[in-house]
């Protein structure tokens, strides 16, 4: 179950002020698989993702282990974990152009020509060729969401975390962006952990659903895909 390319969470416990929010969570997300975490506000879902990124608020007491592609990332600094994340807001850097945002995601050490080639390729993949010089503020919500994903993918992550990334989009756009994100993630064989309130997201993801509730979560609460 913990093969190459998988994201593995072992015995993860999240607690705040002595109250356990998640207790002993065991999950394996295989490459190309999307595991959904659902639950009410305050159940610790976003904290779980922040912990996986290495940016959790120290107010939470978090124990357990996370391995990615066989490497224990639990104590690594965020910038070398190679875990990409998308939030409900696109969080494109407003002082950079669209191209500048994409360039920020590229790994260091590439030649200028190679950087430009990769940016152009990413823009074409997002069906936004020629948009490199544009101000992100001039893009539509869907265009911004696609650029945010491409920026994340250009950083060559080994796993993708999605923190309710579709919740701010209107219904029509949500389906398209969901397909776009899931399609690119599975195409690249990335293990994906999706946090959402929306059962439609979980259905579209098609993978295992972990239901967090007001009661603390045990390993046995891991459910089946929603139909």
């Amino acid at each position, binding site marked *: 179950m913990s093969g190459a390319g998988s994201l593995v969470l072992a015995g993860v416990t999240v607690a705040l002020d002595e109250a356990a929010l998640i207790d002993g969570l065991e999950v394996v997300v295989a490459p190309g698989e999307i595991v959904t975490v659902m639950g009410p506000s305050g159940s610790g879902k976003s904290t779980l993702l922040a912990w996986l*990124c290495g940016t959790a608020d120290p107010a939470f007491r978090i124990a357990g282990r996370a391995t990615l592609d066989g490497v224990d990332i639990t104590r690594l600094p965020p*910038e070398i*974990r190679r875990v990409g994340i998308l939030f409900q807001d696109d969080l494109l850097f*407003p*002082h950079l152009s669209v191209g500048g945002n994409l360039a*920020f995601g590229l790994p260091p050490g590439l030649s200028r020509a190679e950087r430009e080639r990769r940016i152009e390729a990413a823009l074409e993949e997002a069906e936004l060729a020629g948009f490199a010089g544009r101000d992100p*503020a001039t893009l539509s919500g869907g265009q911004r969401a696609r650029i945010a994903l491409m920026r994340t993918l250009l950083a060559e992550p080994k796993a993708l975390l999605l923190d309710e990334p579709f919740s701010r989009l209107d219904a029509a756009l949500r389906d398209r962006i969901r397909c776009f994100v899931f399609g690119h993630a599975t195409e690249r064989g990335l293990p994906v952990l999706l946090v959402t309130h929306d059962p439609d997201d979980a259905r579209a993801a098609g993978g295992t659903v972990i239901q967090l509730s007001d009661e603390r979560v045990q390993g046995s609460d891991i459910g089946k895909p929603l139909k």
Partner: protein
Amino acid sequence: MLRWVPALTLLLFLGPVAAGLVGTILPAFGILPALGGTEPSLTPWRRLFAEPGLGTSLRLTLTTGFAAAIASLALVLAFLATCHGTRPVAVVRRLLAPLLAVPHVAVAIGFAFLASPSGWAARAVSPWLTGWERPPDIATAPDPYGIALVCGLVLKEVPFLLLMTLAALGQVPADRTLAVARSLGYGPATAWFKTVLPLLWPQIRLPVYAVLAYSLSVVDMALVLAPGAPPPLAPRVLRWFSDPDLSRQFLAAAGAALQFVLVVGAIALFHGAEQLVAGLGRRWIAAGGRGHGAHGGRLAATGAMGLVFGIGLLGLLGMALWSVARRWRWPDALPSVWSAGNWTRQAEALAWPGWTTVSVAGAAALIAIALVLGCLENEQRRHVTPGARALWLIYAPLLAPQIGFLFGVQVLFVTVGLDGRWAALVWGHLLFVLPYVFLALAGPWRRLDERYARTALCLGAPPGRVFWRIKLPMLLRPVLFALAVGFAVSVGEYLPTVFAGGGRYATLTTEAVSLAAGGDRRVIGVYAFLQALLPWLGFTLAIAIPAWLYRDRRNMKAFTV
């Protein structure tokens, strides 16, 4: 390295304050070995209390200090309570920067130009109304009761308190709270006082104390606007410190210590009054009075605020006009002959103080911004949440009277061989620049959505790159604004230059204060106007640079001060 920045900051700006207090208090009790004081003694205090007119000085200090602080606070609260969410508040908000940028001395000189017997106010009504064919022989600015000093302080402290209160209003749910109170039948001003003020007060308490402390211990404005025989305590202590008879240093130190006690006592008294008012306020709130009919109050508060801003801006205009006036006879409203000669004649004399002003202000502001950025970045990287005590530490140099510890700072500089050096001047200014830079930048820096940094980290950028490439450019506008605030504070500093400079450095502010005692308004106008102009330039650049750099980035407008 970043983890040491908060400790270094505290050492750099609280160390001298603490050492300064000790270095002032010890001579107050006779101990200053350099001047032969080796045994503890109460002689300095006996000499202090034997000084003729000390009672008058103390009365002037307390009456002007409390009057200025209470009037400023009352005006700001009355204006915001009666005009919340209306056009006058928006107008005042736009006019705030020009008045905030102007140094205290320039405001004082501008007010003196307006209110003195030969000033604009008397000219406007003479001789047709007053019958005065020549300037009347009455003392108006300065006047024997310190009324002009109170007016000058109000002109300068109202914009500061407004800024702090408006910033605090942005951090509490004022609009929703007011909407709920109004829906329960409360009149607008009553609703504001009963529901918004209790939320605001904890955030504006320290700025109010700072205003009280400043008003009680102001020196530069008092030298221009307060009576001179005898003056309030702080300028009197400065006179003793400057006395060629070195034995009066002990007397001065006792006076400085007394000034410190006065300020601490005044803050304690104010705090006690606050508790009393809070108790009465709770009963008033519980009584349930709806308090309609605030229209008259709104008109009065708007009028008073308009008067403050009008007088402040007119004072600036007066200085500008005097600086280009060749002939301006009584009772003409405007000069009859104009000339740029005042500026050209003073150009050479302006160069050195001008350079000192700009170089010291630039260095102090840059060092302050570097330290503050280091502290704020360290706070975020280590997830440290500073408590209320940290804020008290930041405010310490603003709450302690400058005259109460700057002598001790000078003793410290002499001890470490820095006295009278340019570096000492920068350090002396840094003590007062740093708190304002921190207050200006901490809010916007902490409000930046931390998910931007998280996103950047997850894109593989190390924390340093996130700081330089994401946070700093996104917050360029508030960073430059804080830099401009620091620059403006330094340009306006008087006492730190006098003490740390050891008499070897003159700035536009020290020159303007010296000239204010003389009679040549043209020269005073040149110095005071230039002194006011420099901070304006700083603020203009702070607004223009990000506006130009991000002219094509629409969403960058959201990242303001």
